[in-house]
Structure formats: C-alpha cells, structure tokens
C-alpha cells in the first residue's frame, strides 16, 4: 500500500541499463509498422461477429494478444529512438520532439487498453511525425508514401 502510494507521488526518472554494442543502426520503420498493426487489430475487434459466441471469444483473445504485442513493440521502438538515438541537440533543434514522444506513447497505451481507433490512429500519426524528424536529423528528406498495408494510409521514409 505504502509502496503504491510512493509510486504515485515520486517523480519518475530514467535509469539506463545500457547494452554493450551499441550498433548505431536505428530506423523508425518498425514503429510505424507496429502502429499500423494496432490499427488493423482494432479494426478486426470492431468487426467481430457474435453469431458463434465461442468463435468470437476465441478470435477476440487472439486479436487482442496481437494488439498488445504490437503496442509493446511500438513503445519499445520509440524508447530506443528516444533514449539511444536522439541526443540533447536534437531535442533542442526540434522542441516539439519530447512532447511528441510523450503523446505517442500515451496514445499507444490507450489503444492497448481499449478498442479505440482514434488512439490507434494518433499512435500512428505520432510515429510518423517522429520518423520525419529522425530523417531530418540524418540530413535526408523525409517523404510520405502510400502504405501497401490493408490499413491504407502512409509510411514515412526518405528520398
């Protein structure tokens, strides 16, 4: 009980459990792919038919599991970009970047906890905006191309 209270009142900071490489290879593509998958799973959940209850429950379980997995994956990819790739100077050059990460992570959590298409779309939009900034920091021009996924929409890549 006391520990739960402490977890609510103490300000959160970061502790880095750093890995040995680091490889220097970063790409915002996986975050976008995960976000598209969250949208797709949210679509499936909204379309579940209830004529056969057993099948419906079975399908809901499987689809929800995939949605959870990809929400966690999106958050992991964003963490890597935020904490390993982007440096202090990037956050100064793009003052909206920190808030963008916060907003996108929040949308991902909401999409994971609910069947919420708006939150899922906000998570993708955030991942796309972060991708644009990523490519700008690499001195390449970001472009939005039509995605080939059944979710439609776009993927941010570079020229």
């Amino acid at each position, binding site marked *: 009980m006391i520990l739960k209270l402490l977890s609510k009142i103490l300000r959160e900071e970061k*502790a880095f459990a*750093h*890995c040995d490489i680091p490889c220097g290879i970063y790409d915002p593509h996986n975050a976008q792919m995960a976000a598209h998958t969250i949208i797709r799973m949210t679509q499936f959940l909204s379309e579940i038919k209830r004529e056969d209850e057993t099948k419906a429950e079975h399908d809901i379980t499987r689809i929800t599991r995939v949605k959870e997995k990809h929400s966690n994956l999106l958050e992991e990819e964003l963490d890597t970009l935020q904490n390993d790739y982007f440096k202090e100077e990037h956050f100064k050059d793009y003052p909206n970047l920190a808030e963008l990460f916060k907003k996108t992570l929040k949308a991902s959590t909401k999409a994971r906890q609910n069947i919420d298409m708006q939150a899922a779309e906000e998570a993708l939009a955030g991942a796309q905006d972060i991708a644009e900034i990523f490519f700008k920091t690499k001195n390449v021009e970001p472009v939005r191309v039509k995605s080939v996924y059944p979710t439609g929409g776009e993927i941010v890549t570079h020229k």
Partner: protein
Amino acid sequence: MLLKKLRIVGHSMEPTLRNRDLVLVSGIQYLFKKPKLNDIVVFEEENKILIKRIIKATEKGFFVAGDNKKDSLDSRKLGIIPKNKIIGKIIYAF
C-alpha cells in the same frame, strides 16, 4: 537521496529487470553500511543514471555488470565504481 522512482531503459539487466520496468531506489541503505555483493545499484556516469549488479568489491570500489551477459556493459569498460558515485540500491520492483 532518500527515494527515487526509476524507469528502466535498456536490456542489460534482463531477465531480472526489463526495459520499461519501474523500480524504487533508496539511498538510505548505504548511509550506514557498504554496498555488497549482488546488490543491484544505481550510480551516476557521464550525467546519466546507470543500473547494474555488484559482482565484486575491491579496495577502490565495486566491479559492476548487467545480468544480461550477452549484451551488457560492465566495469571492464565502465571502470570500478567508487562508493561515492553509488546513488542507492533497488528496494522494490513494481
């Protein structure tokens, strides 16, 4: 420092602590006694808070390493961590 709430960033303490785990760290433990073998400690290094396990105590400080032996920085690169750099000990993982 009495208490800190820390979010783990990275994989080098897996499987004990995973990326995005939340932990409570206390600085009180080490006011009256020394860090000891197997304690999971947090310390400052180049303006960041790092988290590792104490593998060995030496005269000059502590040899630390991550639990994820395949993918972790340890004191061979970080150096021996002197006691005055250690902020606290993990007392709870949420």
